[in-house]
């Protein structure tokens, strides 16, 4: 049986028109100007049946090239326990609407509360919100908190080493909101602290940095928090949350705001999205955190329960004076992160982070022995490193040869930044999911090309 997707029959339409006292569809839309009406039908092909569409999509999917991914640049191929998909697919989660009514949404509210608790534990911060759209979105919200927190300051400093997409989203936001984004230059792959010092003045509301940064390198923020606080400016650190199992947390660096993307925790690659952003702050900034926050409380019989709280910053309360326009969160993706972390536990998270570190360093060490490529900056990294090629031709050949072996060797940084200066930089990511055999296949192919 083949049904069209449109649920209304002509009879249904006639009944509805009759109920509101209108003779025809044309009459219903008669308030619209003639010039707005289409004269011809919309130039798309006729509808297809479900089966036809399925076959069409399948044939497109077959054109996908499968391979072993050493791709990262913000989106990583980690092991995800099957509990994540199984539990997050429960209809009660998939179809859940915004939990405005606490009395009928305890399950979802508790799941969000657990997410917030885990983000606080991982980042070391005091208060997390219920999630944001992605890491770039979180960076914008951090910038918004900064501007709202310091009077007469309209500039946010951003390290040139943050993810290129986050920088672009920040610039888009600033252009619309009349704020200024000033980019702090890098020195040898990490933020240049000397340049930063020269940029700090009264107009600066805060600084946003990222570690591991866009090159995969870990940055050193010794003294930065104190220096910013002297200026009454805020400090935000963007970090892959899985890396925080090993590296110093934003709280330990003295950050006021921790932000990032939870993709590495339970979310599939899925062509780059949807993802899930996190933002967590100190108690001092609790009233400035954007979006939703779920709080724990007790009902009148003293039983533990959960409810949305502290929404005073949202635009439906503060109207035009709102400091954030976020009125939603990424509940299902946040749930996947929550289930992922519950399945791994703290030990599992440390294990995944350590294995990623060890495997990435194994590959980096052996690649660095080969001619024509270098790990140009002698800086610490975690699961991703920048491989710099001596010339573009060699890089192209490298990528092609490895692809012939079924390996996606890395992400060309210039494909994200569109900068000529990044053309010889290949970002190579190695997660705990890559086996020893896969690493050896990569190395063997690399040795053949780079001899």
């Amino acid at each position: 049986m083949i049904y069209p997707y449109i649920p209304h029959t002509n009879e249904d339409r006639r009944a509805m028109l009759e109920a509101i006292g209108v003779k025809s569809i044309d009459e219903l839309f008669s308030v619209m100007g003639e010039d707005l009406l289409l004269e011809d039908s919309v130039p798309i092909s006729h509808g297809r049946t479900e089966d036809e569409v399925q076959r069409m999509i399948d044939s497109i999917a077959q054109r996908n090239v499968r391979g072993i991914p050493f791709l990262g640049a913000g989106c990583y191929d980690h092991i995800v326990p099957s509990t994540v998909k199984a539990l997050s697919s429960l209809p009660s989660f998939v179809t859940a609407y915004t939990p405005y009514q606490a009395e009928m949404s305890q399950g979802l509210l508790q799941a969000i509360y657990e997410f917030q608790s885990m983000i606080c534990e991982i980042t070391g911060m005091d208060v997390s919100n219920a999630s944001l759209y992605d890491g770039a979105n979180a960076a914008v919200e951090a910038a918004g908190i900064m501007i709202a927190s310091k009077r007469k300051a309209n500039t946010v400093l951003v390290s040139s080493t943050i993810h290129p997409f986050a920088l672009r989203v920040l610039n888009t936001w600033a252009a619309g909101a009349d704020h200024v984004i000033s980019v702090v230059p890098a020195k040898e792959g990490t933020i240049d602290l000397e340049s930063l010092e020269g940029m700090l003045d009264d107009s600066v509301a805060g600084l946003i940095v990222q570690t591991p940064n866009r090159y995969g390198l870990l940055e050193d923020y010794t003294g930065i928090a104190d220096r910013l606080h002297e200026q009454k400016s805020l400090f935000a650190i963007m970090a892959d949350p899985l890396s925080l199992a090993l590296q110093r947390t934003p709280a330990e660096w003295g950050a006021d705001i921790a932000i990032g993307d939870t993709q590495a925790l339970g979310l599939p690659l899925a062509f780059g999205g949807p993802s899930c952003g996190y933002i967590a702050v100190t108690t001092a900034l609790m009233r400035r955190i954007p979006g939703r926050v779920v709080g724990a409380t007790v009902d009148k019989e003293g039983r533990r329960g959960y409810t949305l709280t502290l929404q005073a910053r949202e635009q439906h309360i503060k109207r035009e004076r709102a400091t954030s326009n976020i009125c939603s969160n990424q509940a299902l993706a946040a749930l996947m992160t929550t289930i992922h972390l519950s399945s791994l536990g703290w030990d599992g998270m440390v294990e995944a982070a350590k294995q990623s570190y060890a495997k990435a360093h194994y590959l980096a060490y052996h690649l660095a022995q080969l001619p024509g490529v270098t790990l140009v900056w002698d800086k610490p990294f975690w699961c991703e490193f920048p491989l710099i090629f001596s010339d573009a031709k060699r890089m192209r050949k490298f990528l092609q040869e490895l692809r012939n072996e079924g390996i996606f060797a890395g992400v060309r940084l210039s494909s994200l930044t569109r900068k000529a200066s990044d053309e010889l930089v290949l970002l190579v990511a190695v997660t705990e999911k890559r086996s020893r055999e896969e690493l050896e296949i990569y190395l063997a192919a690399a040795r053949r090309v780079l001899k």
Partner: protein
Amino acid sequence: MSKIVESLRYSKDHEWVRIEGDRAFVGISDHAQSELGEIVYVELPPTGERYEQGEEISTVESVKAASPIINPIAGVVVEANEELDGSPELINEDCYKNHLYVLSPFDQEQYDGLLDADQYKEFLATL
């Protein structure tokens, strides 16, 4: 009928000012607190900063709304009423006893230009 204290001066944004020596105490009027309803949070201004007349200086959140406090006269904030931090309901209990912040020095001329109790009463009648 909302309560108006005779000895105070008022702004059209419903803030009151009381002078004690070289210090000007600023709070919100009974009309303002009753319009707001149950107050749940007062964002206090940072001390040591100068605010102009008419500048938004802090926010009072109630169960109904989050409303800006408009600084009634120019001056430097020397003190914020920290008591309100944990007990914002003090404003509902007695809005004239519990100020928000203290300005010193402050603009005397602008103070003289504020509404007196009778004028504020008349102003309220027009709302």
